[in-house]
């Protein structure tokens, strides 16, 4: 990679008791990149992010964040990283301005008032500065959390499912803001469940049961998965779905609105199976594009098998 690496960690392992939550995860993120971190619930996303920002000590593995050693320079990392927790973790009994002042003082930003006012202005929170954080709606809480995380001009932003429970408009605005920040040179690692958000990232990494299964651009990840997808349109698709269940080559059947997506890794086998269906009255089968979601469903099914 031509640029400097903001995150470069190798073979991170974290165990809680006898459960390995993160299992030899490596990750490289270049400066200015937005990397999406995907995976099912409990796959180790939060644990990995916490290790990157120094909140958890890895049991194995090493690496550097912003050029600082992960194990020995956690304090320096903390100064230059902004971390937005999954759950809102600012003080609900403080006002927006008071929360920001608290953060500004902890990072020793001077003068405090100037930094707070600028941040409030930039995020459009100025009119609500004296509102208690606890009375804010989900979208506003998220804005406040983001504002507090970027106030000290971090070089790396770690976002743990930042848009959970936020409406689509606020999500859109949030992502516009992320891209604006990345354009200014900020590196962003963001975990998410949403496919549309994954597609707004420069690159994505997919983790499942503590193991990194894939990383690259969305196109690369989809292409590397080697899946073929067919779209079936027509009447009584529920019957078609039942009919296809367990047939050779059929790995996923998912209704999408008025269509049915059928996915398999063996394109030829799947095509032959579907030929029969195509002969039914009022049903058409067309080759379709494999989506990121299809790929993830396959990953999830695959890793669950590994676990059993």
């Amino acid at each position, binding site marked *: 990679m031509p640029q400097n690496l903001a995150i470069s960690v190798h073979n991170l392992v974290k165990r809680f008791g006898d459960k390995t939550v993160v299992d030899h995860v490596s990750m490289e993120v270049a400066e200015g990149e937005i990397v999406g971190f995907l995976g099912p619930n409990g796959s180790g996303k939060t644990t990995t992010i916490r290790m990157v920002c120094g909140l958890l*000590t890895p049991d194995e593995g090493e690496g550097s964040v912003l050029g600082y050693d992960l194990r020995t320079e956690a304090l320096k990392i903390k100064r230059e990283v902004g971390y937005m927790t999954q759950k809102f973790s600012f003080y609900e009994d403080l006002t927006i301005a008071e929360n920001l002042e608290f*953060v500004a003082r902890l*990072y020793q930003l001077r003068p405090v008032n100037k930094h707070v006012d600028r941040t409030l202005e930039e995020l459009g929170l100025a009119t609500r500065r004296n509102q208690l954080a606890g009375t804010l709606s989900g979208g506003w809480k998220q804005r406040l959390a983001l504002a507090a995380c970027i106030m000290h001009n971090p070089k790396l932003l770690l976002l743990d499912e930042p848009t959970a429970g936020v409406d689509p408009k606020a999500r859109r605005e949030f992502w516009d803001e992320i891209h604006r920040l990345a354009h200014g040179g900020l590196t962003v690692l963001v975990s998410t469940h949403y496919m549309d958000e994954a597609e707004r990232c420069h690159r994505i990494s997919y983790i499942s049961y503590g193991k990194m299964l894939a990383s690259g651009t969305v196109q690369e990840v989809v292409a590397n998965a080697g899946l073929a997808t067919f779209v079936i349109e027509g009447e009584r698709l529920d019957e078609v779905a039942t009919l296809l269940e367990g047939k050779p080559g059929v790995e996923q059947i998912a209704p999408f609105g008025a269509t049915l997506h059928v996915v398999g890794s063996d394109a030829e086998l799947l095509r032959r199976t579907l030929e029969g269906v195509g002969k039914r009255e009022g049903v058409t089968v067309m080759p379709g594009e494999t989506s990121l979601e299809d790929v993830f469903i396959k990953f999830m099914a695959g890793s669950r098998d590994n676990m059993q």
Partner: protein
Amino acid sequence: MKTAIFSLARLRALLAKEFIQMRRDRITFAMMLAVPLLQLVLFGYAINNDPKALPAALVVTSNDHYTRAMVSALETTGYYRFVTVAASAAEAESLMARGDVSFVVTIPSDFRRRVDSGQKPRILVEADASDPAAASNAIGTLATVASQALLREQGMQAVAAETADNQLQVIVHRRYNPEGISQYNIVPGLLGVILQMTMVMMTAMALTREIERGTMENLLAMPASPTEIMLGKVLPYLVVGAVQVVVVLTAAKLLFSVPFVGSLWLLMGAILVFVMALVLLGYTISTMARTQMQAMQLTFFFFLPSILLSGFMFPYRGMPEWAQTLGEILPLTHFLRVTRGIMLKGADLPEMAPEIAALTIFVFAFAALALLRFRRTLD
């Protein structure tokens, strides 16, 4: 669907859920067993409202058989245990001010001469009456026992002394609280108890609240050191403690007219050390408890022996040896000696130094423990 007003099945579901939760919350569960047990043992064995074997000092100039008879008579009552023979009245005075002895028995140098010459002999018993309950029974038995012992001694000498006016005269001085007003003892003690209850509980909740609300994760992700976080939590409560002290001391003066014979500045200094120890203890609890509820239970767990074993509710000297040793490891015990010593007895710094030193040790021990327990990470 059944719509019965009362369903055993539903009740069973609620009961089962409650028991599962009870079992999961280990600290609460331990507390439920430990608190009654603790209370039982402490109330049952340690607490004694008729304290025996109270430490006493003897001031004596001659070592004749009358003196020995007096001493052994007092010891056989079970109330007096002579721990030291003081060289001078001043030394005995200091022992009492420190609280090392509850009684000073002075047998004057002319005791033998007065007995032999048929004059009315006298002994002086000074009792630490700052806790009126502790001394009352011991004083009550005094006159009879001493007279009988002397008569017996004289009987052996075949000296008839049956007339009332040359019988032994026991002069009792109730020191520090001559009228035996129990408020004088309770109110300075309450200062310590109130501080202990509020300071420990408030700080114990402080850090746990951050963990419970999830703000701890954020705080740890920001550049704040453990010492900064600890001081940030502890110092505000020191201010609250200062306000409480002013309120309690003013009330002691205005409402209860408790005498204040010692140095106010010395007391303030001791209070500062005591409150520091308390808030740091609270903070230590805070690093152990997972929820605010647990923090409160741990506070209570510490509070109970503090009340019972410190000498606040029951005479410290009346407790068995093991309970007194336990009492020594409670900050409140030392603070009560300091506050009663300064307020009622006018003790000065050299006399109170051992107790203040003990409180200082608590400060450093709790601070070290808290910093050791505090995790900079979420591991």
